[in-house]
């Protein structure tokens, strides 16, 4: 089973040649030359040195790599960078405005909504997407719609509390602005 005859083994294809990919990352246009098999996650982490976006499984099973593409939350490990050519990508590094933290970032600190911090950027980006979707109004809905983001430290109750608070802050700000 583990031993395929040499004659049956496929001839390895040569590694793919790089292609140009342009991404607008956190408001800055970046053109990269990437092998087309490069995921958006690896493009961010390895080619743009934006390591705030985390790799927790590389299989789309944990949500640690969640970023916003054109405002929608996605698992950046499940898409190739080349597939997002021309799109707007927002990562955890893009949520702060100067020194000012995003209301979610403030709320996560205040509610101790993380421990090791590894899933945190994904949780926060996912929560930003969740708030933009406007579907969650109750704690149970937050729980359900945040269940694509694993937290092995088990900070879930605090994550829910932080999102609830940030949701209210964002709503108040939006009211003030309108």
């Amino acid at each position: 089973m583990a031993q395929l005859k040499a004659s049956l083994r496929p001839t390895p294809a040569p590694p793919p040649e790089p292609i140009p990919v342009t991404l607008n990352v956190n408001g800055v246009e970046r053109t990269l030359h990437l092998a087309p098999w490069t995921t958006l996650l690896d493009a961010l982490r390895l080619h743009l040195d934006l390591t705030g976006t985390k790799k927790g499984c590389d299989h789309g099973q944990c949500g640690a790599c969640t970023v916003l593409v054109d405002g929608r939350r996605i698992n950046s490990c499940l898409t190739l960078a080349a597939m997002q050519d021309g799109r707007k990508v927002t990562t955890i590094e893009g949520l702060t405005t100067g020194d000012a933290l995003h209301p979610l970032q403030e709320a996560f600190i205040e509610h101790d909504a993380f421990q090791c911090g590894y899933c945190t950027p994904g949780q926060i980006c996912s929560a930003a997407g969740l708030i933009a979707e406007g579907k969650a109004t109750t704690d149970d809905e937050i729980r359900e719609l945040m269940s694509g983001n694993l937290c092995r430290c088990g900070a879930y109750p605090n994550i829910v509390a932080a999102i609830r608070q940030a949701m209210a802050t964002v709503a108040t700000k939006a009211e003030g602005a309108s």
Partner: protein
Amino acid sequence: MIAIPSIPGFLKEPNGPIGKPVSRVDGRKKVTGNAHYAAEFTLPDLAHGYIVSSAIARGRITRIDTAAALALPGVIHVFTHENRPSLAWFDRKWKDDDAPKGAPFRPLYDAEIHHALQPVALVIAESFELARYAARLVHIEYEAAPHQTDLRANRADSFTPGKDKGGFQPPPKPRGDPEQAFLDSPVQVDAEFTQAAEYHNPMEMHATTVLHHDDGTLTVHDKTQGAQNCHTYICNVFGLAKSAVRVMSPFVGGAFGSGLRPQHQLFMAMLAATQLKRSVRVELSRPQMFSFGHRPETIQRVALGADRDGTLRALIHEAVQESSRNENYVEIVVNWSGQQYKCDNVRLDYTLTRLDVHTPLDQRAPGAATGVTALEIAMDELAGKLGMDPLELRLRNYTETDPNTGNPFSSKELRACFQQGAERFGWAKRSPAPRSMRDGRELIGWGMAAGVWDAMQGQAAAKAVLGVDGKLVVSSATADIGTGTYTVMTQIAADVLGLPIGEVTFCLGDSSLPTAPIEGGSWTVSTVGSAVKAVCDRVRSQLVTLAGKRDDSPLKGVAEEDVLFADGHLIVRDDPSRRLSITDVMRGSGTLSIEEEARALPYLLARARHTFATHSAVFVEVRVDEDLGTIRVARVVSAIAAGRIINPKTARSQIQGAVVWGIGMGLEEGAFTDHRLGRVMNHDYAEYHVPVNADVPDIDVLFVEEHDDMVNALGAKGVGEIGIVGVPAAIANAIHHATGVRVRDFPITLDKVLAGLR
């Protein structure tokens, strides 16, 4: 150099930061993406490694063909056992601070395969994707040998281990005549419990980045709970000078025990970096996170005999666990049963069975999470047979001394945990009969359990540097795996010297810092916190001395115990108008900085005469769908006695997180091996289930008052483990209360409940 820290009564500064719910000092870094983990450091010459895992569970490699991989442009090298350099020969060179008795696994050492997913080759390439692709092209032929991975099938072939690992205590000798007392008991419970293997699965996959500097020195960013443990290991294995290597782990993306031993990605990255003389990163894949240590599969028997009034007459607890062929991994599973309840006739047995698996590894509350679960379910079953409230049964057999040793506890507020937890939960309103509470189609069950964990302390050193600007830097080579070490150490230092939190920086995760042991077992506040306190006490004494030197000083002639440290000032306790700022004290004496180093030791005499433990009482409500068997944990109250709580905010998070682990252990987590192949079949996050947000209700944590001035200079016992202990049992007991179905096989998945409901 050794300093015995002052007694906790010395921590009497009004409004000091100890005991305050301070937000994490590293919080801003973590929420902005500026906390950097092991795979997030780089240099321009960085090469990427990808590990090839064995396709068989046991046997030997007969041929490795790397030609196809090496033919790809950009592939630099493929390391195998055939081309590895000469490495350390003696087993002791491969040992680490958490190694049990035996011969540690040596990656790429020879052609032998000892367990499934064993690393057998390392591909190094110019890019991550290329290394991963090339790894698939490494062709390996094996000669398989018969393997044994089934604990149940091999349990008869077990042996009694000795004191085979640091921190392990073999069970005490039997007391009384447990077999006869059991037979004579009018009420009996005798049951078998099984616990599936669990994998730590921290969110950050194990990774190591070795930065190769121009002068030949190496900076090693590793995912570890002990930078110095890994430093010693790699220096020994690769024959490197200690000064040529520095291991760093300032941020660790969870570990829960997985980082207690140097894992093979560290070896692999070091191998490539030292051979290729360039920077290398090796990151495991999620499936490869199932290629090393795990909480061992366990089979237990608990037999309880009692009088009709609930008094325990006999207690027998036997456990058999898996270990590897090469090492005796041991954990304390059964001893807790002899410690938790008063009983005159007790037998505790613990044995190991060798299987063709990687050596198991400490995982959150190792041993206790497993053993106490069996005990606490058996107690619930006994309560059922007696027609007695389960809480009442535990109080009936409560003990103020440790029956295993006859020694008193340094402190034990378990009674307060029972009382306050029950009150918060509303336990008195429980309807005793199983299947007697419901809400529509949902059967409601209330269950409870008690928990226990050791309050250990090791030796650690810390260094403090106080600048004339009043800024303090304290350091020790410990770790913060999400536990809050940065924050609580900052609080302790700030408290002792009366500094604002923002003026104190705590450094950790660096092998070059003062010695600290591996971070785990809930002993870091006790161990490192005591060292931090000791070193800050010294700085404090120095400041008092300096302050009293000048004739015009308002603190002239004032004894140290009469000086209060607050708001960056030295203040005469009885006359607050007599004060000097730390800056003025140092300037006035021409001191630019005060540097101190101190080491703290446990109170050995007190430890010889007492048992030191944390305790808990956990109450759980589950809701079980009568038709579908789906189980939902609806409510948890966890009452904890753990001495002084340095930071109620981070401590509460520790307990909450551990309760979530208990939910995982109780209902979801299990690695399932196909014994024909000897491989774990559910080796990723999709198939190995861990709790998600929707699985977790609000968790009510309460800390009961517990005063302990023997445990250490802080009076703090540590909270990392205690929160999980008892939770799986409380869930199982609640499920029984809801449904009348008793499941003793973990995890309790709905099929097991449904089978009983039908």
